[in-house]
């Protein structure tokens, strides 16, 4: 009889625990990933997939993973996410900004599944978390390098779409470049694509034709690096270490390291201490790393390393006042630092950047 009550109590506890959702331990987690590009893009989606592989490696048979690649942002995304939710995924990572509304919509219909949306800011349901990395910290360091190395004082910047993530990167790069060279200009070309090697190469060529002697990119392929190598100028890699594509060209690259975050979240789910969160990590937590500083003098390298160190230790924040917006209005007062809200919703150029931001 005593045994029975223990059993009853245990099962009651289990029911209670599973009703509580977040606190239930799990024996095995099925983690699913949705990528905007092909896993073989050697950029954004490739790095997310590296993170997925790290999860498999570290958590072994406690985890099963699945992914869908090249899922277009928009209506298709909602179908893909829902398919995963129905197929028994416990946690779904949707790894592109444009999946934001689709993720929240599906999350509302599947309250037992955890959703993790990268680079977004909407958490409309308890089961939606968001995560992002402070890539702009790396872009500031790039700016510090480029500002010193440019001879034409024109740096070519290949941008994808005018979303806050990209705009923040351009601003941070510019602020970094200005900190060492007040004459430097950043020439932005919008490719209107995340991934089209041919078009990215064309954008790089256009920028070089118009006088840029350093290229940086916020698109996902290695094509701009190759064009820079061919034309004999310098460039920054994106998302992965692209040194193979420009051994004498790459200055450094911002490396997205998603693995630690993915492992942490899935582990939390296994251990029963998973909670909704909004994560935004950078240099300090190791989510953003810089590839080795190459093809530059030791002085420039030292400056870059110092900037990286100062940002890591929080001594330096790229977005610190006094800073004005392009339209002349005040953004940050002397000594003021931008808060996360202002950074995450950034939809303006800072003062000094030429050209208009498309809307």
């Amino acid at each position, binding site marked *: 009889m005593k045994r029975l009550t223990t059993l009853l109590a245990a099962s009651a506890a289990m029911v209670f625990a599973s009703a509580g959702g977040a606190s239930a331990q799990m024996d095995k987690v099925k983690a699913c990933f949705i990528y905007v590009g092909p896993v073989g893009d050697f950029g954004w989606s490739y790095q997310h997939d590296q993170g997925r592989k790290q999860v498999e490696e570290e958590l072994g048979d406690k985890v099963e993973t699945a992914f869908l690649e090249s899922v277009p942002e928009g209506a298709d995304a909602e179908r893909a996410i829902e398919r995963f939710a129905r197929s028994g995924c416990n946690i779904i990572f949707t790894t592109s900004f444009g999946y934001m509304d689709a993720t929240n919509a599906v999350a509302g219909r599947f309250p037992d599944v955890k959703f993790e949306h990268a680079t977004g800011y909407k958490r409309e349901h308890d089961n939606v978390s968001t995560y992002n990395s402070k890539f702009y910290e790396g872009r500031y360091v790039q700016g510090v390098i480029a500002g010193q190395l440019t001879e034409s004082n024109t740096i070519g910047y290949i941008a994808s779409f005018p979303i806050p993530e990209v705009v923040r990167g351009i601003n941070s790069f510019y602020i970094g470049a200005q900190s060492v060279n007040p004459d430097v200009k950043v020439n932005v070309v919008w490719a209107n694509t995340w991934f089209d090697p041919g078009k990215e190469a064309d954008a790089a*060529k256009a920028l070089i034709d118009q006088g840029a002697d350093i290229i940086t990119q916020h698109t996902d392929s290695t094509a701009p690096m190759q064009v820079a190598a061919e034309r004999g100028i310098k460039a920054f890699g994106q998302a992965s270490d692209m040194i193979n594509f420009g051994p004498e060209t790459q200055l450094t690259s911002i490396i997205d390291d998603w693995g630690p975050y993915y492992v942490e979240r899935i582990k939390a789910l296994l251990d029963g201490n998973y909670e909704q969160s909004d994560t935004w990590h950078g240099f300090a937590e190791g989510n953003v790393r810089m590839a080795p500083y190459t093809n530059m003098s030791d002085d420039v390298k030292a400056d870059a390393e110092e900037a990286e160190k100062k940002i890591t230790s929080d001594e330096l924040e790229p977005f610190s006042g006094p800073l004005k917006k392009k339209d002349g209005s005040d953004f940050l007062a002397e000594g003021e630092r931008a808060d996360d809200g202002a950074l995450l919703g950034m939809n303006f150029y800072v003062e000094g950047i030429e050209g208009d931001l498309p809307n």
Partner: protein
Amino acid sequence: MLEAILISIATAATPLFLAAIGELVSERAGVLNLGVEGMMAMGAVTGFGIGLATGSPLIGALAAVIVGAVFSLLFAFLTLTLASNQVATGLALTLLGLGVSGQIGEAYVGQPGVRMGPVFLGLDPIFWFSLVLLVVVAWFLFHTKPGLKVRAVGDSHVSAHALGVPVIAIRYAAVAFGGACAGLAGAYLSLVYTPQWVEAMTAGRGWIALALVVFASWRPVRVLVGAWLFGAITIGQLQIQAMSLSTIAGFAAPLDSIVGALKSVPSQFLSSLPYLATVVVLVLISRNRRLALVNTPACLGQPFVPDR
């Protein structure tokens, strides 16, 4: 600067032209192959892989031509011998090609490939070959007897069959030619345009090539014009974005205001211009019934089963 821009335009136009001229021949024979994107992807991965293995971009390109042709024969077998639906089979071929190429190419990701460099006037051998190909195709289709048979098969396979023309055999050949050209177009991407392999690097160019064939109303020379127009708009809008206002102010009188006006147009709109142009042309073509009837292969997309 102008020379560099022209080379960029030619480079952007060549893969579109190659894929489109092949599809044109296929469609002239009455076969609508929507698998261009997939065949290009197969060509791209083959060109890259074989180029890397042999160290010769030329051998890579030749291998891509063969693989493109062989891959298209799968489509030909399904649609011509088994008389399956051409639209559905073509779409399947695209999906298959993108998937298989991604699988084959997994090991190539992150590796720089071999480059086919310029040989004359800053342009590569495949570009020059594509011009020769244009002349040959135009001459073949409109000035030779076999060319006439190809068009006859596309316009009325029943009549052609009644006259003893081997409809199925000619269609096989036309589809294989289309596949070979698409394969070469893909190799152009992975050997000349951006000498690397990344999955889905065709990025929709196969679909643009398909649109170009209609844009050109099935005339070879117009395919070249269309490809150059596409290339010029794509490159032009990037160049204008990159131009500083002072550069633009330095242009001669009418040009400075035109370029200045274009610079103020949102880049999203300029990016979509090639597609808008296609839509406009399609509307114009369909409005002119005579023009549409003269050039559209009448049997386009229709299966032919001889003993029925």
